[in-house]
């Protein structure tokens, strides 16, 4: 039997600690209460007393290394057997020296790129709101309700309340003057001229009737389901990212054997890998991910793509499957804008622009540049933009906006023959779509025959703080519907 010694909690506000010095060597005996290491918390260096007795079989965290509270730092067992791979703890990824947190928001900026502060264009947007505001009709909530019920255009009503606000009386006056059987909205203006008779009685009636109109609550029951999904989610998420960074050739620190002197063979992470590590850890610890997947019949889409490419061949343009998916996502995002939003300070920041990030493997690792303005592009424009983006990514000439401006992302591993996978959301985004290869698969058709179709499995990862499983399902089905009826994408 072995006991894992974990980075101790030394105060409710402690989140991580650094092993300053091991006071016991591997193979030595430890007793309960005996100091085994010096741990540096954010307040002081303290001695960490073992809460297990036996032999210190394995030290998992090197001196000078910082790990979160609760992470296994050593293993104590009953005998001195050398511990093999039995208790494979997570690799003690060294936490990189602290850097300004702002940089973490655009993870993929390579070292060379200028770190431009991200003000994702939120500020200038209040300019055009000005004229809109002056056009807004001032009316009280109850007046609006009555107007909706009676089909009255509030713009045609004169407000007599403070500041010209349309009040209940103003609308009621018109309602009362309306002919009983057919309340047509058109002649109202004219009728407004008619002096209405003050009839207090029906006034209250109207309000009572409206009491029945209750706002539809959000489908809350779905939350539970989605939560259940979280529990069943496959554990090693980080693998996905590693896999995408296909050019990764460096040995992982965790592959080291127990006997080896850990220090000597530890290959330091590249800056990009450190960034990826930071961003993925942050995403997975801050963003409660949930996942929804579905199979998409791409047969029609593949045919259409072939036609389109023929048509565009003259222009030298070419649309990929991924471009179709981007185009479908853009439409779906307009209908389900929460998947295009950011979670911020306990609220949801909606993004007007749809900038679709596309995961790309580059030499040093993985980047996720965005097609800025994808929301306003035709399929052809998307195809051109994504080709351009990919070229410039390889050349390293992407703009900071493209690095950090994504509002949604797509990660496609189809070209690698992957059937399905799940992706980690890139903060501050709230969702990412992971798509696998388009493969011929046997499918049960509507008439129960087994047919061969070109199928693609797509998996949505989304931030549970702003969306629920049911919404995820609707959004994903929207994309599926679009791809299965691909004309709707280009029309």
């Amino acid at each position: 039997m072995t006991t894992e010694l974990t980075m101790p909690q030394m105060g409710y506000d402690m989140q991580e600690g650094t092993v300053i010095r091991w006071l016991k060597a591997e193979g030595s005996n430890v007793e309960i209460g005996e100091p085994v290491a010096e741990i540096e918390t954010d307040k002081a260096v303290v001695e960490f007393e073992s809460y297990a007795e036996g032999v210190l079989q394995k030290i998992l965290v090197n001196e000078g290394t910082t790990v979160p509270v609760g992470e296994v730092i050593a293993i104590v067992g009953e005998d001195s057997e050398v511990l093999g791979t039995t208790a494979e703890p997570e690799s003690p990824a060294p936490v990189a020296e602290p850097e300004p947190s702002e940089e973490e928001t655009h993870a993929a900026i390579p070292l060379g790129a200028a770190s431009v502060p991200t003000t994702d264009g939120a500020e200038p947007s209040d300019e055009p709101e000005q004229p809109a505001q002056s056009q807004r009709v001032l009316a009280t909530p109850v007046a609006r309700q009555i107007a909706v019920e009676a089909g009255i255009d509030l713009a045609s009503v004169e407000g007599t309340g403070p500041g010209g606000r349309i009040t209940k009386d103003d609308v009621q006056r018109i309602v009362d003057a309306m002919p009983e059987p057919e309340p047509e909205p058109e002649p109202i203006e004219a009728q407004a001229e008619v002096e209405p008779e003050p009839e207090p009685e029906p006034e209250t009636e109207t309000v009572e009737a409206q009491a029945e109109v209750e706002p539809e609550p959000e489908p809350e029951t779905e939350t539970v389901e989605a939560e259940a999904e979280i529990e069943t989610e496959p554990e090693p998420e980080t693998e996905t990212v590693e896999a995408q960074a296909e050019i990764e050739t460096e040995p992982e620190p965790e592959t080291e054997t127990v006997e080896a002197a850990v220090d000597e063979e530890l290959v330091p992470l590249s800056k990009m890998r450190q960034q990826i590590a930071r961003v993925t850890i942050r995403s997975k610890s801050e963003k409660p991910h949930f996942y929804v997947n579905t199979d998409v019949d791409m047969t029609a889409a593949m045919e259409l793509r072939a036609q389109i490419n023929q048509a565009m061949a003259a222009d030298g343009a070419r649309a990929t499957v991924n471009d179709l998916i981007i185009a479908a996502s853009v439409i779906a995002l307009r209908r389900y804008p929460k998947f295009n939003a950011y979670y911020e300070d306990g609220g949801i920041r909606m993004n007007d622009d749809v900038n679709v990030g596309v995961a790309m493997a580059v030499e040093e690792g993985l980047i996720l540049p965005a097609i800025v303005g994808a929301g306003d592009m035709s399929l052809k424009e998307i195809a051109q933009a994504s080709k351009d983006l990919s070229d410039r990514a390889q050349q390293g000439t992407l703009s900071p906006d493209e690095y950090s401006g994504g509002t949604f992302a797509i990660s496609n591993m189809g070209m690698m023959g992957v059937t399905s996978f799940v992706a980690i959301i890139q903060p501050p985004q709230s969702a990412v779509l992971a798509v696998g290869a388009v493969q011929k698969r046997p499918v049960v058709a509507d008439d129960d025959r087994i047919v061969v179709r070109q199928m693609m499995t797509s998996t949505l990862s989304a931030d549970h703080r702003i969306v629920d499983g049911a919404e995820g399902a609707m959004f994903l089905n929207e994309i599926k519907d679009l791809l299965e009826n691909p004309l709707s994408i280009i029309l």
Partner: protein
Amino acid sequence: MKAAVNLEKTEVAEFYRRMLLIRRFEEASARLYMQSLIGGFLHLYIGEEAVAVGAISLLEPQDYVITHYRDHGHALARGMDPKACMAELCGRATGASGGKGGSMHLFDASRHFMGGHAIVGGQLPIGVGIGLGIKMQGKNAAVMIFFGDGAVNEGEFHESMNLASLWKLPVVFFLENNLYGMGTHVDKTHAAGRDIYNSAEYYKIPAVQIDGMDLLEVREATTEALRRVRAGNGPVFIEAMTYRYRGHSMADPVKYRENSEVEEWRINDPIDRFKALALEEGLITTEEMEAIQKEVAEVIAEAIDYAKESPFPELEVIHNNVYAHRTSK
């Protein structure tokens, strides 16, 4: 060290057992805290066991105990179930307060253990009120209020001594002077110096200062205090000089004192001293002690298992006991 001659053998075994239980409980709590099974603040009583065990061992069931947030020792000394206690520390449904109070707020009304209270000095007026209730109802009981040297600079300390003396209430003010209010030494916080018991004289409350590391001296002083209180002569004040080996809480890196100071106090460790004396006077045998150690270890292991295996409270209890009756309004 006082002579133990007046003690029965069974009492000796019981005192040893209780002090050891508290120490092992606290050590176990620290381990569970480091493993994040206990949250929030955790204040350990290690080093001060003789005070709680010595003083509370002289109380009758109808007497009351009220104390501060370093309350595990008093709760266990008063007979609270270590399982309920540990489960409460771990925030479980089976905890003494169903997981709503935590380490600093242990309660066992059935044993007249009226709580750990986490606002420094806050328990003093309430303890006085318990004394008032006892007196007005003509009950033959006393209340023992534990507080630390940190509390004596609060206005409530003085208000409480004044009220208790003015109304001649059956209150034992029990000061556990462990020399530090968090990390600040009493010499730096109390103008009258560390002999705080002198302040009681101003309020015409008889007061003594004792060695809080000596269980027998604690018992002797408490016996006398209770005699006076039960005779209806009003409150008494005991200042027990004691020491906590650990920091103020688990988060305390203890930068404010030298390790040598801790070592000096450890020489007078209340459990070691009592053990040595009892052995010397033939009131306990090594075998008996070993049996007790084994039994305590089992009790602690059981408490830990119980806490770990107990469920967390169901969310629907969250609104229970805000008021006596849940109202829809």
